[in-house]
């Protein structure tokens, strides 16, 4: 047992795999099985009491619906129980440690939820006259001010709906700027370690994607990048801090070289949490960067969204920002919705979404930002980096850390699966951690490391939590190195054992059908 982890609480465990006798219901005390709404609901049941409809002559044309829709209903108590039971089959930050690298699963303050639900924000329509929504526009304007100030940039596009949508916004702004100067360029450069959304975004915007090589240190190879730059390169997409958890030391040189070659620099801001309040991307020559409000600024992930991806823009790209956006004239907030309103917005590349973006996420993010303030946000970055380095140094003797020699890590620590027993892989460690009561780290990303395990603790975890995790991770890693067969079939204690993903993809069953229909459809 390592001396590092002595303060980590280690509960007395029962014997692994002892699940007791089978039960009649299939339930196991608090672990409750739940059928689908289609199996328990009926078309005649409803959990909503409605007023009687007035008797009128229908104006539905000839389009009145006759065929049943096939929607089961549940009464209110059944509904609450159904979803409550489902909820208990989920892991969540509220339950425990969620060290998912690159995803920044930090605590979600409930104040954020409270302010987002204030009627003045939650119960206003996006097309109300602007005079009736001045307070809502003020929130957008205030958040925009924080984002441009924290990043040292010129402007921010608030409407992108998520990180990948923000990437698209940035790349479209680059393309618009190039088009405006009559410069048709065809290539975007991305490091191999980039998020999959980077190449997908560039391709969607009509660019060919080429890889930028990395050094053995895990950073962008500046010399190789410079050698590739030329009149066909529209820009580069670089994640900084990068997905190996390292700061790109040469970022300023990269930006200068790209600019000198006539291109633009997109920075994937997924990892902004590591530097917020300490480093401004604008000082590094970045032209566009999305900010995942659900990562750095604590809006809830909600089981896969909604996200929000405002994009900060440099002076060079600001004129091409998408519509709409909020402007302030004296004390009055204006919403600029049309390309022709105001000559200085005439170069906008257009609209990316209906309405004005993820207002419900803006209120939450602003509440978080104001709670921390400029001083607290700096502490956020420092604690996030401190926690990650603590994990890295506490685990590097049991798991290979391929870039541990490359300098301190930033917000996340990267390990590989080298040194595990024959037949054991990263997946087995991930599933073993599930039995230990953790959500696994990010696995098999970035692609540049074999069997990558990317561990991001965030700043909202205590030292005691980290110490217990270190103990668990060391234990699971040792089992994977010694070839413990029980680990191959983990998890043993989750609501489900390993699921057959191959079958799911080979014969996709994406909707529920009555059992006899399901057979007929085979």
């Amino acid at each position, binding site marked *: 047992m390592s001396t590092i982890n002595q303060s980590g609480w280690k509960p007395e465990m029962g014997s692994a795999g002892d699940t007791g006798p089978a039960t009649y219901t299939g339930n196991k005390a608090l672990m409750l099985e*739940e059928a*689908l709404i289609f199996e328990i609901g009926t078309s*005649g049941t409803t*959990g*909503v009491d409605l*007023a009687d*409809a007035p*008797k*009128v002559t229908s*104006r*539905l044309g000839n389009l*009145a*619906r006759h065929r049943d*829709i096939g*929607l089961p209903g549940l009464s209110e108590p059944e*509904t609450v129980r159904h979803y409550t039971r489902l909820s208990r089959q*989920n892991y969540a*930050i509220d339950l425990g440690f969620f060290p998912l690298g690159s995803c920044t699963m930090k605590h979600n303050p409930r104040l954020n939820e409270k302010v987002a639900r204030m009627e003045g*924000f939650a*119960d*206003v*329509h996006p097309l*109300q*006259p602007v005079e009736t929504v001045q*307070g809502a526009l003020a929130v957008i304007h205030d958040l925009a001010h924080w984002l441009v100030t924290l990043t040292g940039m010129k402007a921010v596009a608030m409407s992108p709906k998520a990180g*990948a949508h923000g990437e698209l916004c940035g790349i479209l702004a680059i393309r618009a700027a190039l088009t405006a100067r009559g410069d048709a360029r065809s290539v975007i450069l991305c490091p191999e370690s980039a998020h999959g959304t980077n*190449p997908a975004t560039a391709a969607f915007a*009509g660019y060919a994607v080429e890889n930028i090589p990395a050094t053995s240190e895990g950073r962008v190879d500046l010399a190789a990048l410079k050698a590739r730059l030329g009149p066909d390169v529209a820009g580069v997409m670089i994640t900084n801090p990068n997905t190996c958890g390292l700061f790109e030391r040469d970022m300023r040189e990269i930006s200068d070289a790209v600019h000198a070659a006539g291109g633009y620099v997109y920075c994937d801001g997924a990892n902004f949490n590591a*530097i917020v*309040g300490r*480093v401004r991307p604008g000082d590094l020559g970045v032209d566009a960067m999305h900010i995942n409000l659900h990562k750095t600024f604590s809006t809830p*992930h909600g089981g*896969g*969204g*909604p996200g929000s991806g405002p994009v900060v823009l440099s002076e060079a790209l600001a004129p091409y920002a998408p519509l709409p956006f909020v402007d302030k004239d004296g004390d009055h907030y204006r919403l600029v919705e049309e390309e*022709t309103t105001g000559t200085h917005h005439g170069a906008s590349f257009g*609209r990316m*979404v*209906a*309405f*004005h973006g*993820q207002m*419900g*996420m803006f209120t939450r993010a602003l509440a978080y930002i*104001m709670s921390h303030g400029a*001083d*607290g946000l700096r502490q956020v970055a420092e604690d996030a*980096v*401190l926690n990650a380095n603590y994990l890295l*140094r506490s685990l590097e003797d049991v798991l290979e850390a391929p870039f541990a020699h490359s300098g301190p890590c930033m917000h996340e620590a990267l390990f590989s699966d080298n040194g595990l027993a024959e037949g054991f892989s990263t997946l087995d460690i991930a599933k073993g951690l599930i039995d230990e009561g953790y*959500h696994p780290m990010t696995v098999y990303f970035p692609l540049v490391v074999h069997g990558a395990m990317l561990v991001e603790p965030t700043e909202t975890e*205590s030292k005691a939590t980290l110490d217990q995790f270190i103990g668990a991770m060391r234990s699971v890693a040792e089992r994977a190195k010694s070839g413990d067969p029980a680990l191959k079939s983990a*998890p043993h204690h989750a609501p489900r054992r390993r*699921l*057959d*993903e191959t079958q799911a*993809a080979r014969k*996709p*069953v*994406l909707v529920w059908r009555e059992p006899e229909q399901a057979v007929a459809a085979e």
Partner: protein
Amino acid sequence: MRYLPLTPSDRQAMLGVIGAQSIDDLFVDVPAHAQLDGPIPGLPNHASEMAVERHFSELARQNMTASHNPFFLGAGAYKHHVPASVDHIIQRGEFLTAYTPYQPEIAQGTLQMLFEFQTQVARLFGCDVANASMYDGSTACWEAIGMAGRITKRTKALLSSGLHPHYVSVAKTMAQYTGDTLDIKLPELSAQTDSARLLAAIDGETSCVVVQYPDILGRIEDMSAIAAKAHEHGALLIAVVTEPVALGAIKAPGDMGADIVVGEGQSLGVGLQFGGPYVGLFACKEKFVRQMPGRLCGETVDAQGKRGFVLTLSTREQHIRREKATSNICTNSGLCALAFSIHLTLLGEKGLRGLAELNHGLAVQAADRLSQIAGVELVNDAFFNEFTLKLPKEARPVVRALADRKVLGGVSLGRLYPEADALANGLVVAVTEVATKEDVETFAAALQEVLA
């Protein structure tokens, strides 16, 4: 700092384990010129929970809310009563603070919910399959146009003039970069849609026809003829539904031959929220499933043979396919999809039909009442819960004048089509179950006064 658990002595102990003298040692890779010495000037420092809450309360008070005023706005976002249990359930930490269900053994709650959601959406739209949701209706609409291009290997999309102008704008933005051509036209203040134009324009180069149902003016029309003509020429029909409650009263687009049906799910469970987050709905015929964008949840079994659910067909997606993915979309709108699904489960078939009937009945009464006002004309023949009035003067200032009288009286076409003089007198009015008889009377009286 209430969200940060590390104590000063923790930090010191941890730096010791790391072998660092101070936190600055961990930022050595940041060049000195980019390091900030202290908090960024000009921004306030941290604030208590109470102070932040007071600040937001003050801003919230400056907005006129849908619940406290007669309210008749629609045009792609609708006010419906959302049962209290919906918001209670989505605030459970196990849903709210979960991640994308990539580790299915500990995410069956989210996955089963998504499987139920997909089934509900597919049935509501009259389609075979649906995905686990998109950002919103407008982006779902654009993704559908892109998908039709991949399926037909053609680039010409025909957009109905009744498609929401924001959806048209999003498609225009994207088309600049993808090489698609869009055939678009402004709507006319008439009971007639432009289906004749669409029918005439479909040819062997058309990838898809995009029709909103009910459309931006609230008009509803059978799409079967367009579907038939499109299919005859190897093109697809994409139907767009911005008010899913309508499908409790009118035929599903899939039943009229639509190949892809997309929509905005906001009106069930989600609420207005000043425009977002909302939830994009996306459904299609089974044969097109491998060309769909976004996440899909599928049924399978675990190692002990128990039914379970996983995200599937991810070989379409960016994290596997990178630049060859069907879309760059990464996230979905999971929590809003949950709200939608819970609300629809509470309603059930019976409740949705009842709600739709109630909306339609109230809208018919309101349309009749408002069109009695001198100079006000009802544009629509057929509609569900939203209709267009032609006013004797420009509608945009009328809407502002109504707001001064504490009535949120619809969306002017001047707001939606600022350049189109022929539409300037149009006012789109939505009437849902939240509008009382008194609200309609207050609206009618205020409108009469403003028009006088």
